[in-house]
Each structure stands twice: as C-alpha cells, then as structure tokens.
C-alpha cells in the first residue's frame, strides 16, 4: 500500500464555510472542476511526478514523460476528500485519472493502451513517437493562486 509522504496540503483546503457566492456548493469539487478546465493536460495521481506513491500513477507519469508531454499534476493523497470528490465528479473510481482538454481519458490501463497504440501521442498533439524526446514547447505558466488543490506544472 502507499503511504502519503507529502506535505500536509490539507491545511490549504478551505473550511466548510469558506466565503464565496455559492453556499450550497462544494468548494473542493469546484476547485477540482476548475483545475480540470484550466489545464489542458491534467493528471490526478498519488504522489508527485518525481515521487509517485503508487505503481499505477508511476506508469501513467512515465507514459506522459516518455512522450515529452507537459502536464499538470494534482496529488490526491494530502486530503481524502480530493479523491472522493474527484471520483464523484468523474464517475471513475480509481487513481490516476488523466484529463485532456477537460475530458476524462482514463486511468492507468487506458493511458497505457493509448500510449502503446500511439493514440496518446495523437491526443496530446505530439508528433514524435514513443522514445523520441518530443520537442517541448510552451512553458506553462498557470498559477492557480490559493486554490485548495496544489497543481504542479510539469515540463518534460
């Protein structure tokens, strides 16, 4: 089993009564939805790309990195609510979850299949096949501010 080994980011999560116009809504779910809409390639994972805390997350990161994709990552471990809300939102029970342009692509199995078939590179708009270090472009500069999720931008 995995062991959370990251900083206690949970502290950055807003309290239940956080301000904002919407009272009856769920701030964590909103933050997740916002992150998904803001990042064209977003991976929810256990641990970080440098230190994945689960083999499935590690394999998914590996596929993206091998393709030279730049992606943002969210560690779901710091607060169990992130995972609960994510799964409720995506209707997908497991971690990792890869989103492309706001759409769930799948978990480790689907990403691996798509990587092997070349579909992942196509979906990511990457020309070079697996193995070739893709030309990385566009330094991502998203800084979502004091969002309740820590989104890290990952460049190859």
């Amino acid at each position, binding site marked *: *089993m995995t062991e959370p080994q990251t900083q206690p980011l949970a502290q950055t999560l807003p309290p239940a009564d956080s301000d904002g116009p919407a009272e009856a809504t769920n701030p964590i779910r909103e933050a997740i939805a916002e992150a998904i809409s803001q990042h064209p390639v977003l991976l929810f994972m256990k641990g970080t790309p440098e230190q994945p805390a689960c083999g*499935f997350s590690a394999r998914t990161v590996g596929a993206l990195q091998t393709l030279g994709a730049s992606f943002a990552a969210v560690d779901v471990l710091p607060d169990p609510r992130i*995972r609960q809300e994510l*799964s409720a939102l995506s*209707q*997908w*029970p*497991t*971690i990792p979850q890869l989103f492309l342009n706001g759409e*769930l*692509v*799948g*978990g*480790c*199995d*689907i990403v691996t*299949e798509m990587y092997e078939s070349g579909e992942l590179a196509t979906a990511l708009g990457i020309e070079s096949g697996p193995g070739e270090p893709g030309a990385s472009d566009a330094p991502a500069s998203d800084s979502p501010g004091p969002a309740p999720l820590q989104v890290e931008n990952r460049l190859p």
Partner: protein
Amino acid sequence: MPDSEQIKRRIEDGIPGARAEVEDFTGGGDHFQATVTAAAFDGLSRIEQHRLVYAVFGDEIGGPIHALSLKTKTE
C-alpha cells in the same frame, strides 16, 4: 477477501454475456487484472466499457479491491 475466481464470476454475472479472465496480480487478493470480453461493450468508448466493469463492484474498488486493472474487448 475476494479471489480471482470470485472476481471473474461477479463480472460474468454482472455483465450479461461477458467472459472474464482474472489474475491476482500480487497474490495478495487486492490487485487484480481482468480481461473482459463482452458484446455489451459494442459501441461504447473505452471509458464507458471500463465503467461498466467497475460498476459491478461499486465501492469495493479502491476499498477491499485496491486495484482492478482492466482490458476490455468487444469480441
């Protein structure tokens, strides 16, 4: 704790016409790998196919069944 045979039976019972091959990945009864073939997958995206299989187990996925690795085929 579920074993491969139970996982297989539940998938086949849960999805009409499905055939499943299930392996216990680690031998620990919580990481399974299943290849599921079902006509019911026809016309569904991969995501939807996997969701159909996950739906058989509900909350057990991520709980007692830590991981169910899937490969789905139509026929």
